[in-house]
């Protein structure tokens, strides 16, 4: 009953979403405010409707309604209630409901704002967000229904199709069929029962969905011809929050891989990871280049293109991360919804690009870029490098398909491809991060730039020289550390220059000077904090990629393994039952540095008998210098020869996580609300009168 209700409500929501699209277009064409208002109300109705449907789904999940195929697949009786709730987004069908739920919530939030100044955008924002919501609702209603039942025939056996797969549907597939109720569910894969994995997908989705809002305004701007930077100003904060959530999602996913997957790394260039990274890359480029449009009135066409790309990559990413089909290159179409996704992406992309081409002349820059070293030119360069990274990623994902098409042989590229191709691009981005904050808007020459940067560059060289004599002679590492030092020094110098000016002029102490400084230009200084955090993350990435060492061996009790100054002594092992049905095998090892006892670590293997699945949880000792990461590989109660361990020392990797936390802090600084009026005044001062166009009047 509840499942029927949930399905019924979501079907209604689908119809309402379509109505709001139609009403908005009709209202806009006939200039009828009543129709537009009706469309807006229909859209506001979506969130409560989808919430009802989602509540039904959660009810089914926590009350073990295994006759519903989705519930059977993602939960089991032994799972605790909170995991049953989070199973909502643990499977494809449920996560599509989750997606549309978030989308409708954000769309409602947007339409609740004051629209006095932007009336003409409203219908088109409704159209774009409602089409997107309707697409996901349509997938739920027609293709991936989380409410569908298993059925049994009159003989009480499960009804299966010709291939032996159970038929799942909302309605009886044959006369006399009744609902089939399995005794227990499949359960969520134990590897996914980790706090990082529980909040990782919602974060990623929040990021994905928030990017739809700036896209909706961009399309509204293209259609209405109001192509000034109003759409960017309205959605600036949305973009930043989208970026925050997406970044959070990426970081949590990496941390999960590091803690749970037990291979001593955090990023494997898996296509699913790349799918989440790609919209982040275009989003990051977009965040930078909108500043050029706001400050100089340039790059308008480019910004449109970036947000269109981001939207397409968001939909693409949702498909790839959820369909779970990617470890095989042949598998793009494996899921029933694959072709539907590709058609939707294709249609929205082509329509958006067509609109962009139609408005191309209106989106010309208000001035021209003159100097190649000016701030705006360096920002453009930054954009080109981000897009280059994107191209590398995209190429890596589609290369197998291309090679298949042209040679008949599938050829793939693995992590080394991405590493070699991406490393120089990131190095270039770091160099820009060091130089661009010192260049001037409009015009900079090599001489002015050199004068601003040379002190930091010399200091960074000194740091590099010290590292050469004390730490490493690896040229890649030294190049990396030089760039890190350069960016950090330049950024600190920027903080210091502005703060000390304030201290002199306003007679403030250093803390209140810094505080007010950041408060006055949150975007700029939030951005600098983000740059600093990126450099800390770079230290971690350089450390684990270039200096990771490992050893492995089987040792009897009280014997030890040594690696890179650490001695790991195997003390004991115990087996005991753990929560949610797992069987825990936990080793106790004591860690020494020289003769110095540092503490005990507990690497373990959790075995889930119901899934016949092991989960290897490393013992980690984390310091700023390095991480000691111990995996219990094997231990047999019957074997007399001890336990087998694999040990990694991951130098500097902790800086990655420290950087990640500072990074989130930096985005919050940049995204913190400030009064809109101020920003508008600031621009009015900068742009000469002649360049300003009245919105809507210009053509």
């Amino acid at each position, binding site marked *: 009953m509840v499942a029927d209700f949930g399905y019924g409500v979501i079907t209604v929501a689908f119809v309402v979403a379509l109505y709001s699209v139609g009403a908005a277009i009709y209202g806009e064409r006939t200039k009828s405010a009543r129709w537009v208002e009706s469309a807006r109300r229909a859209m506001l109705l979506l969130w409560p409707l989808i919430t009802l449907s989602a509540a039904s789904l959660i009810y089914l999940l926590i009350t073990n309604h295994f006759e519903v195929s989705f519930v059977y697949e993602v939960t089991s009786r032994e799972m605790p209630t909170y995991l049953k709730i989070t199973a909502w987004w643990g499977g494809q069908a449920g996560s599509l409901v989750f997606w549309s739920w978030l989308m409708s919530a954000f769309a409602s939030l947007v339409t609740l704002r004051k629209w006095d100044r932007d009336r003409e955008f409203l219908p088109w924002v409704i159209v774009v967000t409602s089409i997107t919501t309707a697409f996901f609702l349509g997938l739920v209603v027609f293709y991936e229904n989380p409410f569908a039942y298993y059925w049994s025939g009159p003989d009480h056996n499960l009804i299966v199709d010709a291939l032996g797969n159970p038929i799942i549907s909302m309605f009886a597939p044959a006369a006399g069929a009744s609902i089939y109720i399995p005794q227990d569910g499949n359960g969520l894969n134990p590897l996914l029962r980790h706090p990082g994995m529980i909040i990782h997908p919602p974060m990623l989705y929040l990021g994905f969905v928030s990017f739809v809002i700036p896209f909706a305004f961009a399309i509204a701007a293209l259609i209405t011809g109001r192509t000034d930077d109003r759409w960017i100003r309205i959605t600036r904060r949305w973009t930043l929050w989208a970026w925050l959530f997406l970044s959070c999602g990426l970081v949590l996913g990496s941390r999960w891989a590091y803690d749970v997957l037990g291979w001593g790394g955090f990023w494997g260039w898996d296509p699913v990871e790349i799918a989440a990274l790609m919209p982040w890359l275009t989003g990051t480029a977009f965040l930078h280049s909108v500043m050029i449009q706001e400050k100089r009135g340039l790059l308008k066409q480019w910004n449109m293109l970036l947000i269109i790309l981001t939207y397409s990559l968001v939909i693409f990413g949702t498909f790839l991360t959820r369909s779970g089909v990617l470890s095989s290159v042949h598998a793009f179409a494996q899921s029933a919804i694959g072709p539907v996704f590709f058609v939707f992406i294709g249609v929205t992309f082509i329509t958006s690009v067509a609109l962009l081409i139609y408005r191309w002349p209106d989106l010309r820059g208000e001035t021209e870029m003159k100097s190649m070293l000016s701030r705006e030119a360096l920002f453009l360069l930054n954009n080109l490098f981000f897009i280059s990274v994107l191209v590398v990623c995209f190429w890596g994902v589609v*290369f197998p398909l291309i090679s298949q098409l042209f040679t008949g042989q599938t050829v793939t590229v693995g992590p080394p491809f991405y590493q070699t*191709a991406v490393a120089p*691009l990131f190095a270039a981005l770091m160099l820009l991060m060091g130089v661009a904050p010192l260049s001037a808007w409009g015009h900079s020459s090599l001489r002015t730039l050199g004068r601003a940067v040379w002190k930091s560059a010399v200091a960074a060289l000194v740091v590099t020289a010290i590292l050469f004599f004390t730490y490493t002679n690896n040229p890649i590492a030294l190049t990396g550390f030089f760039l890190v030092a350069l960016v950090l020094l330049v950024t600190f110098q920027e903080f210091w220059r502005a703060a000390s000016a304030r201290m002199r002029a306003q007679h403030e102490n250093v803390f209140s000077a810094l505080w007010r400084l950041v408060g006055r230009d949150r975007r700029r200084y939030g951005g600098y904090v983000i740059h600093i955090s990126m450099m800390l993350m770079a230290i971690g990435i350089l450390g684990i990629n270039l200096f990771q060492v490992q050893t492995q061996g089987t040792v009897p009790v009280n014997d030890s393994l040594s690696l890179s100054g650490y001695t790991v002594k195997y003390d004991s092992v115990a087996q005991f039952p753990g929560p949610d049905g797992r069987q825990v095998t936990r080793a106790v090892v004591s860690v020494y540095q020289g003769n110095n006892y540092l503490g005990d670590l507990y690497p373990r293997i959790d075995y889930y008998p119901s899934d016949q699945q092991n989960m290897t949880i490393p013992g980690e000792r984390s310091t700023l210098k390095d991480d000691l990461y111990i995996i219990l590989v094997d231990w047999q109660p019957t074997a007399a020869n001890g336990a087998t361990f694999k040990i990694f020392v991951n130098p500097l990797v902790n800086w990655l996580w420290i950087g990640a936390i500072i990074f989130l802090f930096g985005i919050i600084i940049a995204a913190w609300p400030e009064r809109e009026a101020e920003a508008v005044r600031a621009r009015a001062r900068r742009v000469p009168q002649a360049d300003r166009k009245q919105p809507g009047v210009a053509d």
Partner: protein
Amino acid sequence: MGRTKFIVGGVLILAAVVYLIFTATKANAEYFMTVDELKAKGASIVSQDVRISGAVVGDTIQYDANTLTLTFDIAQVPGDQKEVDAEGGLAAVLHAAVIDPNRTRLQVTYNGPEPDLLKNEAQAILTGHLDSNGVFHADELLLKCPTKYQSAVPNQVGG
């Protein structure tokens, strides 16, 4: 004049990126093959890095913890998506590959911890090379368990 500068700069960067991608692809490309395709290549592919996809045969998994040596067999599964669909989806294909004794099998050896996901009827994607004895030496294991083979839906409660 101002414009030319930017165009030349842009073209140079573009060329550099294309060159970067081209060389990285060339240096790191690996053939992706099924077990049958690998066997058909025979000696010509020995010691060249390739990627192989197959179904893990659970009975053959052996692990020597002292040397961290893992050996197992993988069975041929078709690489073509249409064939996979025709046989009822990936889970069914993997199941069929493992129970069929006539499928081509390939012995695999790997040095390292036994991966959590290595079990019967998992899809294995291996990077490594074939030696002259026909044993595949994997440097990297990628394993994926498709949602359980679905005809294994348990019994109904009551009746």
